[in-house]
């Protein structure tokens, strides 16, 4: 079964003067456990596509199904709950909360989830921080970390809620090649060992080749 299914998805951005067709008739199926990369020139709609799949944005037309369930009629509250339960996000600029320590940043998704005890949360946070190899940096603040470390914290935050899908928008875009390789290894591990589905936007052909499948985009269309 497909864990993500997009049918004739279109996205139009309207401002007062211009109308941008960011996505047009996009049909995509992604199977559970797949590691897919999305590639294409700047401005072709990769981030828009990721945001629509990640339920952060609603399509202007077409349907998005997650785990076989249509999402069009879900309220903002229901979408929030669904994101919390099933989706994880990694951003190019990390987006760690500067006022919170590594531990508190990682714990964040669990704060928006009912029914986990303080103890369970703390144990889970420790576990995922170990997983990304940052046990020795638990109490640090984001400003005290390198870019690669920040992104590893962000990945820990993305998996702490045990989501089925991880969306990563140019996760290595702000990192040097050495750190990029580390992050790619980590993502592959999460895909292979935990069976998580990963959808990643990248400009790096080599990274794309390391994934199961490349979806190529051009001007709001999918080429393959």
């Amino acid at each position, binding site marked *: 079964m497909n864990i993500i299914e997009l049918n004739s998805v279109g996205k139009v951005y309207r401002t007062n003067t211009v109308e941008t067709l960011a996505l047009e008739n996009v049909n995509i199926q992604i199977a559970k456990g797949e590691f897919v990369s999305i590639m294409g020139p700047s401005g072709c709609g990769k981030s828009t596509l990721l945001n629509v799949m990640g339920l*952060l*944005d609603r399509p202007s037309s077409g349907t998005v199904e997650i785990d076989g369930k249509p999402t069009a009629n879900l309220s903002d509250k229901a979408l*929030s709950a669904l994101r919390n339960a099933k989706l994880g*996000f990694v*951003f190019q600029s990390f987006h760690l909360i500067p*006022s919170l320590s590594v531990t*508190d940043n990682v714990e*964040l998704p669990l704060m928006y*989830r009912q029914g986990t005890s303080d103890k369970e949360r703390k144990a889970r946070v420790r576990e995922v921080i170990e997983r990304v190899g940052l046990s020795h940096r638990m109490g640090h603040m984001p400003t005290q970390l390198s870019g690669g470390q920040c992104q590893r914290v962000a990945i820990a935050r993305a998996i702490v809620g045990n989501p089925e899908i991880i969306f990563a928008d140019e996760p290595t875009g702000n990192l040097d090649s050495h750190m990029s390789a580390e992050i790619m290894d980590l993502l592959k591990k999460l895909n292979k060992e935990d069976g998580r589905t990963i959808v990643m936007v990248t400009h790096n052909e080599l990274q794309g080749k390391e994934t199961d499948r490349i979806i190529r985009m051009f001007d709001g269309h999918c080429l393959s």
Partner: protein
Amino acid sequence: MKSNILKQTLYDMKRQPVTAAVTLIGTALAIFLMMTVMMINDVKTMPLTPESNRDRILYGMNMHTVSTEDGNNSNSSSRLSVKSATELYGDLEGISVWSIYCDDNNNIDVQATGKTPAVLFSRMTDDKFWQVFDHKFVAGRPYDKATIDAGDNVVVLSEGAVREVLECTPEEAIGQTVKVGQKPKTVIGVVKDNTPLASHAFGEVFMPIPKDNNMSWDDDYFGSVSVAMLMEDGATYDQIKKQVKARYAELENNMKATNRKPVYHEQPYDQLAASNAMGSNTTPDTESEKKKTLMLILILLLVPAINMSALTQSRLKHRTAEIGVKRAYGATKGRIVLELLAENFVVTLAGGIAGLLLSMIGAWLLSDTFFAGMGDPSNRVDINLPINAILNWKIFFWAVASCFVLNLLSAGIPAWRASRVHPVEALRK
């Protein structure tokens, strides 16, 4: 979560110290002003020794009559005489004890032999006065009915009066003679210095109303006394009022021959009405007083809130990305609003506590200025503020409640707006 709120608040304040300081000071000032208004308002009705029974005390204060003749608009009003006080308020059902006394303080010369005279506040009362009000005797005793009936020339002084006039201890004062308005009187009791905020009971010199003296200036119903009475447990204000209204009807009947009739002004008054009683020929308007205070409080909160709202708005601008992340990870809009309000409440509460402390310390140290003119228009005597006037649960509750309202007013709209930002837009930052 709670610890995150604190961490984020502190971080935010450190990052924008000027904004934080302005917010804190603004809040402190708003709560300071608000609590000052509250305290000044509160002392009018809260129990204050020697008016500890304010919640069950009633006052028959004035007499007002008009002519019944056509074309005659004559209007008379003043305090009561002993006769009218007794006819209107004597031995009502549901009243445990009632006292006839002069509600107005009179300045009087008091002098001990060989010493300089002092001008002090004096009050003439009956013996029940000491039961309705709980003056604390530090030496001697109050005058009782037997003393009054015997026509003894006695006086009760306050500690301060003793100090000023006799320059001795309360114990040494008992039995000494002082001239009160040229008449020699024996000191039989000394009471603790009391606060003029308890304006019905306050005094420095207390003397008995002589036996069989009507205290009247028209030899009839008008005079210089009032009535204070204590309701029994279970008695209701309405029940007492109804009886007094009936007595007014009786009085109207009795007065027919004089071609005058009394005007009923909803007496007796409870503490609130009495504190709002403006003249002897009007009915106190407690509702409009309440509204005025409410409006004042609202303005005191609203004006700083509007200013701080702009500050909050600019503070939240820096946090758009963070809100986007939280939304992506499942925080609902409502949750974002709650978190931001909670964070802001920490700041408001900190400022509010500072403001409350400031108002308490201010009221305590500057009580003569704070409560100027209340109960003592001449501002001569010390306010002697009882500590419970500023340190009580009600004040504390209202301070916290005001912080809560101030928080909603100053952060509500900014937080709401911040929560509406589209997560994709927020994350682009």
